[in-house]
């Protein structure tokens, strides 16, 4: 009986899976490498540019929204709490997440003045491609940074950054889950914490 249900279920899910596989187009390694190379050049041009810090921050925020699949990363970061959050909370989360991601990236402008980077290799990982780069900044040891690139509506976009074997989106997911579990599983506590973090960073800039 159970076996029959399993077979029927499996047979029914095959066409759905095939459709899903068709919908998520794979990025090729060459596409991902040239995308990371272009994006990196734009990033370096802004960081090492002559504008004021607030001008650079504005330019970086624009670039982040162009090259990072922020909504997808946000969904991943909220994780299982996507099922708990109300539609209004999810929308507020995405808005705050867009702002925080940009602020967190611009936080590093000063530290990476004079940065250069080289694209090394690219490895296909299912539908994603991991592009390895070496980032060098004055007075710092060179760092190996991996960029995970995925197709987002026909465009390659960054969905994760890997430094020394640690994933930025997994770390952020655990960071946010820590806030929610510490507050009795309330997503509203996370939204308040994100809001107060944004206020703190805005005041400091």
């Amino acid at each position, binding site marked *: 009986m159970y076996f029959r249900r399993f077979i029927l279920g499996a047979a029914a899910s095959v066409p759905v899976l095939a459709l899903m596989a068709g919908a998520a187009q794979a990025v090729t390694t060459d596409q991902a490498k040239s995308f990371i190379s272009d994006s990196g050049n734009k990033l370096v041009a802004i960081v090492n540019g002559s504008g004021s810090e607030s001008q650079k921050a504005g330019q970086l925020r624009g670039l982040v929204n162009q090259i990072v699949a922020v909504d997808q990363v946000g969904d991943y970061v909220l994780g*299982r709490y996507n*099922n708990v959050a109300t539609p209004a909370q999810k929308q507020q989360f995405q808005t705050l997440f867009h702002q925080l991601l940009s*602020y*967190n990236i611009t*936080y*590093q402008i000063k*530290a990476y003045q004079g940065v250069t980077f080289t694209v090394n290799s690219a490895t296909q990982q299912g539908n994603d491609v991991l592009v390895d780069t070496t980032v060098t900044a004055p*007075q*710092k*040891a060179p760092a190996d940074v991996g960029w995970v690139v995925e197709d987002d509506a026909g465009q390659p976009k960054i969905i994760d950054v890997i430094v*020394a*074997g*640690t*994933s930025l989106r*997994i*770390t952020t997911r*655990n*960071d*946010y*889950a*820590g*806030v929610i*579990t*510490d507050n009795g*599983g309330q997503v509203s506590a*996370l939204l308040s*914490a*994100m809001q107060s*973090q944004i206020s703190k*960073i805005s005041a400091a800039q």
Partner: protein
Amino acid sequence: MTKLNRRLRQGLAFTVPALALATALSGCATAPPKSDTADYQAYQQLNDPLEPANRVFYTVNDKLDTYFMKPVAEGYVHITTQGIRNHVGDFASNIGEPARMLNFMAEGHSKDAGTSLVRFVVNSTIGIGGIFDPAASMGYPETDTDFGLTLASWGVPAGPYLYLPFFGPSGVRDAANYPVEWFATPMEAAPASGALSDFGYSETGLHLVNTRAELIQPIDQIKATALDPYATFRSLYRQSRASQLQQIDQRDNRTWPDWYHQPAQ
């Protein structure tokens, strides 16, 4: 024997109060009911039953770091160049090579053990006591392991997460590394002397300050951007350990002669 006793007493004097404090404060996190499947699974996956006590130690360490270690590290950066800090790092890394060699042997990675041995011999001689790292340019790059990773390769699970007073992020399995690291230094093999002890203390102190100096920017960044720095450091620690293990496995080159026969496929 006398020296071993002294080292043992010093080690115990440092770790026993820390462990006693840990036990006294070891409030346990309350597990969610098993009927709440998602929450219960997340709790199990987190594997941090001592979280309340761990968070207390995190706060204590954070204060110590903010008011002592970080200012010392900033002063050190002010009076040194990146080149000097790299050489200090190489020197400390070289002193750790014999322990790495033993750990690689215990893990059954003979080629990595050989790399550690060659690195120690070459860097201690041509590299002037390990200040330089000529072995890396000779094709023997630095490889990393410790007793926690050795236990992992023997199949010992990571166990619950621990945030140790003074030492920081660890786990039940990885905490076993501290006593091993304390004794597995080349200084232990030399005849006991006051000068050698002083050298050992100076080297440990300099290594700590040098490492903290290298981490000024990343730690500042985490503290400034994380909503829950404790959870962030816990996640980074676990991912980093998993990555170290993966690197050791991926680097598991076959030896010649083939000492470790693979079963026929």
